[in-house]
C-alpha cells in the first residue's frame, strides 16, 4: 500500500531525505483529506441511524444528544410490523433485479454501438434518450397507467420494471458507452483474428474490460429503481414497491417513523453498493494491455 504515486521530483540525490519526507507528508495529507470527506459523507447516515433507534421522547429533547442516549427500538419495531412491508420488499427486489436485467440487456449493446461505430444520427439518438429523462415522471406516469390498464399489466411489478427500465436506459447506455470507449480496439481485433465471432469477442474480451462501467451503471439502475416513488405509486395499487408503500405514507407520519423508514430504505441499497463495488474496483491498478 505504499506505492509512490504523488511522486516527488525524480532527480533525487541519494543522501537527500527531503523527497522521502515530502512523500510521507503527502501520504499523511491524503489520509487527512480522505478522513474529512468520509466524515462529511458518513455523519448524516450515522445521525439517521441514531434518530431511528431513539425513543420518541428522545427526539424531542434539545439540545439533541449526538449519540444514542435515548436508545429504543419501539419505533423501528412498529414500523417493521406494518402491513405490506414484507410484500413491498419482495416487490422491490423483483423490480430492482428485473430492471437491472432488462436495462443491461438492452442498454449494453446500445452503449457499445455508440462507442464503436460512427453512424448517422448518433447525437439525435443520444438526445432522444435524454429527452425521456428530462420530462418529470409525473407527467408520463398517468397516461402510462392508462396504457398498462388496457394491456392488463397494471398493478404488477412488471409495470414498474418497464417504467424503471425506460428511466434507467439513458444512464446505462451513456455510462457503458464511455467505458467501452476506453477499451482498446486491438484487444478485440486480436480476439477476432484468433477466430472469435463479433459476439464472442465482445463477451470474452470486451465485457470483462468493461466490467467497471457495467458495475457503475448497475449501481445507478438498482438504486434509482429502489428509490423511485412517484411513478411506482401511480402504476401500482395493491402490489406496491417498498418505497411507494413507505415513502408515500411517511410524509404524513411522525418524525420518528420517517427516520425509521429512511433507514430501512437505505440498508438494502447499501448492501447492493457493497456487492457491486467489488466489480467496480476489480481492476484497480491493473493495466489494460
Amino acid at each position, binding site marked *: 500500500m505504499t506505492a509512490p504515486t504523488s511522486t516527488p521530483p525524480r532527480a533525487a540525490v541519494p543522501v537527500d531525505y527531503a523527497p522521502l519526507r515530502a512523500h510521507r507528508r503527502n501520504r499523511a495529507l491524503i489520509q487527512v483529506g480522505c478522513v474529512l470527506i468520509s466524515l462529511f459523507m458518513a455523519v448524516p447516515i450515522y445521525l439517521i441511524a441514531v434518530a431511528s433507534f431513539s425513543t420518541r421522547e428522545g427526539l*424531542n429533547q434539545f439540545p439533541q444528544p449526538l449519540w444514542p442516549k435515548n436508545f429504543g427500538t419501539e419505533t423501528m419495531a412498529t414500523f417493521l410490523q406494518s402491513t405490506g412491508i414484507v410484500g413491498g420488499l419482495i416487490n422491490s427486489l423483483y423490480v430492482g433485479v428485473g430492471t437491472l436485467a432488462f436495462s443491461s440487456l438492452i442498454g449494453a449493446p446500445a452503449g457499445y454501438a455508440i462507442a464503436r461505430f460512427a453512424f448517422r444520427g448518433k447525437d439525435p439518438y443520444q438526445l432522444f434518450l435524454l429527452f425521456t429523462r428530462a420530462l418529470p415522471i409525473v407527467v408520463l406516469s398517468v397516461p402510462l397507467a392508462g396504457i398498462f390498464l388496457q394491456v392488463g399489466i397494471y398493478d404488477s411489478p412488471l409495470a414498474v420494471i418497464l417504467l424503471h427500465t425506460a428511466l434507467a436506459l439513458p444512464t446505462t447506455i451513456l455510462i457503458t458507452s464511455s467505458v467501452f470507449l476506453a477499451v482498446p480496439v486491438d484487444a478485440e481485433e486480436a480476439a477476432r483474428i484468433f477466430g472469435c465471432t463479433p459476439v464472442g469477442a465482445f463477451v470474452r474480451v470486451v465485457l470483462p474490460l468493461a466490467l467497471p462501467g457495467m458495475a457503475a451503471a448497475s449501481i445507478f439502475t438498482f438504486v434509482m429503481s429502489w428509490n423511485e416513488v412517484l411513478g411506482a405509486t401511480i402504476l401500482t395499487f395493491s402490489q406496491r414497491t417498498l418505497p411507494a408503500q413507505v415513502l408515500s405514507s411517511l410524509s404524513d407520519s*411522525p418524525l420518528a417513523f420517517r427516520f425509521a423508514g429512511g433507514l430501512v430504505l437505505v440498508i438494502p441499497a447499501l448492501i447492493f453498493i457493497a456487492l457491486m463495488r467489488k466489480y467496480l474496483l476489480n481492476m484497480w491498478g491493473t493495466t489494460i494491455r
Partner: protein
Amino acid sequence: MSQVLNASFSRRGLLGLGAGLAVASTLAGCAGASTSGGGDVTFFSTQFAPVEEKQRFEKILTEYVKDVKVGFNALPSAADFNTQLKSQVDAKKVSIGVAAAIHGDLAPLGDYLDNVDDLVADAKAAGITDDLLTLGKMGTAQQKYIPWMQASYVVCVNKKALEWLPSGADVNALTYDQFLQWAVDANKANGKPVFGFPAGPKGLYHRFFQGYLLPSFTGGVVSRWTSDDAVKGWTWMQEFWKNCNPASTNYEFMQEPLARGEVLVAWDHVARLVAAPKDKPEDWIMVPAPIGDKGLGYMLIVAGMAVPKGGDKAQAAKVIKALSAPAAQVELLRQNAFFPVVKADLPTDLPGPIKLAAEAIEKQATSPKALLALPPVGLGAKDGEFGQVFKDVFRETCLQGADPKATITKYATNLETILAGAKVPCWAPDPAADVCKVG
C-alpha cells in the same frame, strides 16, 4: 483449432445471453406480492396513511367488519387517490371496493362514483344526521357517499403559556384581540415567539383563513373577500405572524413542534394535534378557536365512504354498514381521533388527548357565537387552486410584508376566475347565492 475456439466462444457468449434472457423473462412472469393485506374488498382511503394510524385502523377493520375480509390501502395524496380511482373506472377494471376520503377529495370524483341511495336507510338507522347525509349528495340528486367520520380544528395550549394570558381573558372564549395580545406578551416574556402556525407545504393553514379568520372577521369568505373587515382580518394575521415562530413555514403537523417545546400554542386539525399531549395530558389543554366581530368561525371536516362505478357494490355495502355502527364509530374516535357522524354517547374512558380534543370541539360547536364554515363545496379539482389563493395572500402579506388591501384586491381576479370556471353556489358561511361571486 481456431474453428473450434471460435465455436466454443460464440456458443458461450450466446449461452450467457440466453441465460440472461431466461432470468429476465422468469422475473417478468412472477406475480408480485400483495401490500394491502389481501382481502375480498379493498378499502381505499386518503386518510390513515401514517404508520400507527394505519395499524390501528386495520385493527378496527378486522374487529368490526365481520362478514368480509377487508384489505386496507392508503394513499395520502389526494391527487394520487384521484388518479388511481379515475384510471380504474375509465379502464373498467375496478379493484377498489370502498373509496373513503374527505368531502373535498371526493367532490371532484362525482361522475366516477356509484349512486348509493339504497344505503341511506341503513345509514339513517345507524343514526347519521340528515344534514351530513345531504352533504353526501355533493349538490346532486343522488347520494354519492355515506358519511364516515368528522373532525375539526382547535387550539392546543401547553399550560406553561397560560401565565402570559391577558388578564381577565377566558382561555375557552378568547377574542382575536386577546389571542393576539397573548402571543405578543408571550413573545416579549420569552424573548422569542412561542406561538406556531402550520404553514409548511403540507400544512393546513389555508383552512385557518377559510374557516376561522375570515368568517370570524367578515361573516363570509368569498362574498366578503374585499371588504374592509377582510382587510382587518389580514392585518390581524400580519400582526399575529410577527409573533409566530418563523420556522412555522416548515411546520406541517403542529403536534411535533408542540411536543418538542419549540412552540407552546398552536391551531391545527385535531388529528394533527393529539400526539402532542400523549405523554402528559395533564400539562396540556385544548380550547376553541378565538371569536371575532362576526362570531366564532369554525370549520367542520367530513369524510365519506363511496363506491366507484363498476365496483362490487354488494360487498362494499357490507363494509360501509359495519363501519357506520355506533360502536365502530366510537372506536375510531378512541384510536384515531376522528369523531362519529352518528349520534353516539361518547364513553367516559377516552384517552387523555382525545378527551381534550372532544371537549374543545364540543365547546366550539355549541358556543353561542358559533359560525359554521364548510370546506369549499363543489369546486372539485379546483379546490387546490382555491386554497392556493389564500396561501398566496398569506405569503405576500405576512412573509413579504405587502399591504393587505392591495393584495386581496389583486387576488380577487384569481378567485373570480376559479369560481367562474366552477359555477357553484356559495357554501356556508357565505349566503347561498345561485352562483358564488367574489364580493
